[in-house]
């Protein structure tokens, strides 16, 4: 399958700003999906609201573009109603961790078979650059004009604690590792979560002295640390994600029984 058989060519160029990391993730996702040879017609894509949540609408398959934050809840219903479908959720940091935080942790806990791709750009990009739950401490945004006084969430660690079967985090600078993790996630039975720290040059970088997407990619490269090599002090600290270092790698890979196996639901109709 060619790239533009997977994506809807008639919708190109897409809405994302120049240099946005969403497109990079789209490449890696296509590559992983295509390498596995999964059937596109048997895969449903769900998104919430936000830049990254628009991705399902570009994919040449069934797409459910839902309300803000509820993508995992919608996907839960869809997956249980048609267990034979593969369900992939595209979401962002605000959609998944802020307004949808409850559905996120409970989705991990329920361990339903779905792949959740979270593109974390550390900002609310679509609404013009407000601080999000992953904006690093002291960084600037339109709603934190004198620096963010809060500390960011670590979405991947939350997913581990909440019980997801597979959790990985990469940045858009590590495209090959990311592709590999998406492949593992797509094959995983149970809740698989891949967080991608991504660049938003227009609304995040521009306000934080990194207006060029390549500066953000360089920052990702400099601060990425493999999870097994992360400084212990930082791992214990709530602020490990971004301000000091970005822990990347596979966080967990386990095989708890998935929810639909546990309740024994099989194909409908």
């Amino acid at each position, binding site marked *: 399958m060619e790239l533009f058989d997977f994506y809807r060519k008639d919708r190109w160029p897409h809405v994302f700003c120049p240099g946005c990391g969403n497109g990079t993730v789209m490449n890696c996702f296509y590559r992983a999906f295509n390498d596995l040879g999964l059937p596109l017609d048997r895969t449903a894509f769900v998104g919430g609201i936000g830049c990254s949540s628009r991705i399902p*609408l570009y994919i040449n398959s069934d*797409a459910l573009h*839902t309300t803000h934050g509820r993508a995992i809840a919608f996907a839960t219903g869809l997956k249980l*109603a*048609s267990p034979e479908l593969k369900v992939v959720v595209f979401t962002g940091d605000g959609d998944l961790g802020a307004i949808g935080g*409850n559905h996120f942790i*409970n989705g991990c806990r329920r361990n339903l078979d779905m792949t959740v791709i979270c593109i974390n750009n550390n900002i609310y990009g679509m609404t013009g650059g407000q601080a999000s739950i992953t904006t690093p401490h002291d960084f600037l945004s339109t709603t934190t004009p004198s620096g963010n006084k809060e500390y960011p969430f670590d979405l991947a660690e939350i997913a581990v604690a909440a019980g997801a079967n597979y959790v990985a985090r990469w940045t858009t600078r590590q495209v090959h590792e990311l592709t590999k993790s998406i492949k593992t996630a797509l094959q995983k039975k149970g809740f698989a979560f891949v967080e991608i720290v991504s660049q938003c040059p227009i609304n995040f970088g521009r306000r934080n002295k990194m207006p060029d997407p390549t500066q953000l990619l360089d920052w990702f490269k400099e601060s990425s640390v493999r999870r097994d090599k992360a400084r212990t002090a930082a791992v214990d600290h709530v602020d490990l994600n971004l301000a000091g270092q970005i822990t990347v790698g596979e966080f967990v890979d386990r095989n708890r029984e998935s929810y639909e196996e546990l309740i024994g639901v099989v194909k409908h109709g």
Partner: protein
Amino acid sequence: MRARPGEYFLQGNEACVEGAIVAGVRFFAGYPITPSTEIAEGLARRLTGTDEVFLQMEDEIACISAVIGASWGGVKSMTATSGPGFSLMQEAIGYAAMSETPVVIVNVMRGGPSTGQPTRASQGDVMQTKWGSHGDYQVIAFAPASVQEMFDLTVEAFNYAEKYRVPAFLLSDAEVGHMRGPLTIPDKIRIVNRKEKGIKRSDEAYDISDELVHPFPVFGKGHKTMITGMTHAEDSRIEPEDPKIHQELVKRLSQKVLMNRKDINKWEVMCPGSKTMVVSYGAASLGAMEVASQDDRIGLLRLKTIWPFPEEPVAEIASHCDRMLVCEMNLGQLYGDIKRVALEAGCRKVELLSKIGGDPPTPSEVRHKLHEMGAI
């Protein structure tokens, strides 16, 4: 497995469970809330097949979202809640209206606002059902007044949700939900299934034109369906900036319900020729029902469908009577619409008996009010 036809003695909420199963519910997502919890409990015991799912979720927003998701998986799905949970669901109800998803939402109404009276009946969510989410849209809502109607109207809610691809509501209340009474499950029950894209069946839903209600593209059947809550063109292309596409879409969403009022509206009349008519629905009509059955000067128009607003039956009754009394267990939410239609139809006087606090208006309270109006 559905209950066998026959006679039963059940609670209202239990009758709702039986109705849902007869209608073909395959997915239920719920969150515990008084006074609707018995519906979730009942379905947790009943939806145990390998193609049936009962799911208790983390909140009501998740419930309605999962129910909409399940509907796109091609199954009949429902949720049940009460006041505070219903308020949480409003955004997704607007999504269901915009994306034309057939879902059934049972609201066993309790006294509000806020936490209010969790164990007492109310009809305070009548306007919220119609106007709760932002933007213009139409829904279908039924108000049962007995255990039998909890069953019958649950089936109808599924039928009309499927037929018109809209969210349909069963607006029960703590009184009817917790009432115990006889239930007859007939041999033959009308069941409507949705019009599916690419499948031709001899079902009632196929009688509606495809321009008004598009065939439903089930996920996973190769339709490459795109479903969005944003303004979208016929081919689901997102077009949030185009005024014409938005007008056409939103008008069609309303028209498909309003144009079919005759099909959807259900009501019951007692003593139709009376010069004084009481108009009521749900538990509020119980007192008036007794009055009308004992006094032939008093008639009763009992609405089973409250949304879309049943203009025709109200106008018809109003044109033959002098006085109308509207009985509601709120501060007059349907009174405004009834008064407007009745006065236009030539009725001289329309008054309101409103009672809140948890108890339905008693027969003596209805008589007292009618006496004040000079009717008896």
